[in-house]
């Protein structure tokens, strides 16, 4: 019984680290990694609820599978956007344009 509790706690900690990483880091790839870690944490909570001693609940599994695919889709979209911006070539630091608060 305690296994899943342990893993849900690690899941929560992973979420914490992921959240901190996504906010604190500035480089786009590190941000994406942080977001993925946060995703892993959430999946860990999901899957830890799936285990009830003998019976394993298939619903969280399906959910996590879908979650992983969504995560990969999101990450690749962000990477693609980052590359397109990079290819436009100008200043790479994000300059906050004047009137945009």
């Amino acid at each position, binding site marked *: 019984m305690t296994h899943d509790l342990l893993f849900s706690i690690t899941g929560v900690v992973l979420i914490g680290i992921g959240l901190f990483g*996504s906010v604190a880091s500035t480089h786009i790839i590190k941000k994406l990694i942080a*977001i993925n870690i*946060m995703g892993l944490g959430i999946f860990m909570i999901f899957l830890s609820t799936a285990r009830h001693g003998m019976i394993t609940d298939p619903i969280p599994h399906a959910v996590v599978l*879908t979650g992983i695919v*969504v995560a990969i889709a*999101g990450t690749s979209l*962000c990477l693609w*956007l980052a590359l397109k911006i990079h290819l436009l070539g100008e200043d790479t630091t994000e300059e906050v344009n004047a009137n945009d608060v």
Partner: protein
Amino acid sequence: MMSDLLTPLLLPLMVATPLIAALVSILVGSKRLRVGISLLFAILQVLIALGLVLFLSTYQSAIRYELGGWGAPLGIDLTVDGLSALMLMLSSVLVLVLSLYSSQYFSHQDSVRFWPLWWLLIAGLNAVFLAADAFNIFVALEIMGLSAVALVSLGGSRAALMSALRYALVGLLGSLLYLLGVALLYRAYGTLDLLMLSTVADHNPLTWVSLSLISLGLLLKTALLPLHFWLPAAHSSAPAPVSAVLSALVVKASFYLLMRFWFDVLSPATNEIGMTALGVLGAVAIIWGCVAALRAQRLKLLIAYSTVAQIGYLFLLFPLATASGSSMINAGTIAAVVYFILAHALAKAAMFLAAGDIQSYYGHDNINKLKGLVLTLPMAVATFAIAGVSLIGLPPSGGFIAKWLLLESAISSGKWWWAVIMLMGGLLAALYIGKVLSIAFNQDIDRPTVHRPAQNRSAFYGFTLAILAVFCGFNTEWVLNLLEVQFERPLMTSGGVQ
């Protein structure tokens, strides 16, 4: 009889049509064919929505469709009640007009990518409005978010791409927070279905934490004040029809979900402090949005900031809805907010279309250089003015009715300070719209440089939307009693709501 057998089938059809449209527009080669088919599907979608609305208003009962025949907890259901039917109707009508507008707005190169993404976005929207399963909502939100990001990136400029990237990151973070909330709910109650949750949910710390997480995720997507930094850039750099659909529908979809969770699903977990906190954030958003709009240099940026302000109005619902202390949600406020969504969606879409025309005609939309606009683009100015009227909430527009209902509920519940904020918001809105109009009416200028001859046909769509925004001010009776149609709560063990 025949009709009520078929009508539940409309629900899955509502999601299927945009998907099919997307598929077809990917596979089809020529642009003209792609546009033709899309318009066809848009009209079909309006008909389906109309069918749903008529069914609901005649039979006064919500519909629930169990996909795959497995029933609620195991399978996923699609549900439609008064509120979602209205939102579907609004979105289908708006999509029809925006599709007409964007049929000749995009070059061949962009239209290849525009139409599939457009239809996937609408599929996401319909899925959200129909969803009754927590995880299903997550996937639908994800579809909506990603396609919105993709559409914004269509703008092609560096600003568009940068704002798209920021929007994507915010979207991802929001969805993950929402998923975390759902995970906690699943852990606590073991079911993902909203109806089941609403009967089972009660006031314990886990529910409160999950509600706040879900709300945080959705607030990120609705861009309430502290979390709004991504909206102005995204909405102003996107192409006109995209920013119209973003401001009018996408932002409202996540607000719709917030309303669902706060008032239907997890209402026992909601408390007074949370409500007033949202109300205060809303009020600050109104004031701040208007001030920022006044300072904005570009027209589209001004309109985007006005969206931030108007969203503030929506959040006034929370403190007022349960103001009278009793858990009873007074229907008047909900009706008022729905009216706000209706009027704002139409008006904002019209404004963005007008801005789109101005941008394509002048090549830029810097407000100060738009002198004498009333001579070159009279239709665009008319659209902007009429939509402005609805935004400020002057009679006879829909905005006025919404403001009236909200004011009435504010005063009758004795919390007059919300009323003051509303009035202030109206005046501030008048300020920035007045600013644009007075520049537009200024005629002592030389001939402006023509970027692209104004096809007045495209201005026509904006104008129809503006007129719609005004006309939905009339017989509100029909809309209000449609909202009464709600799910009768199965009176299960835990107290339930009403």
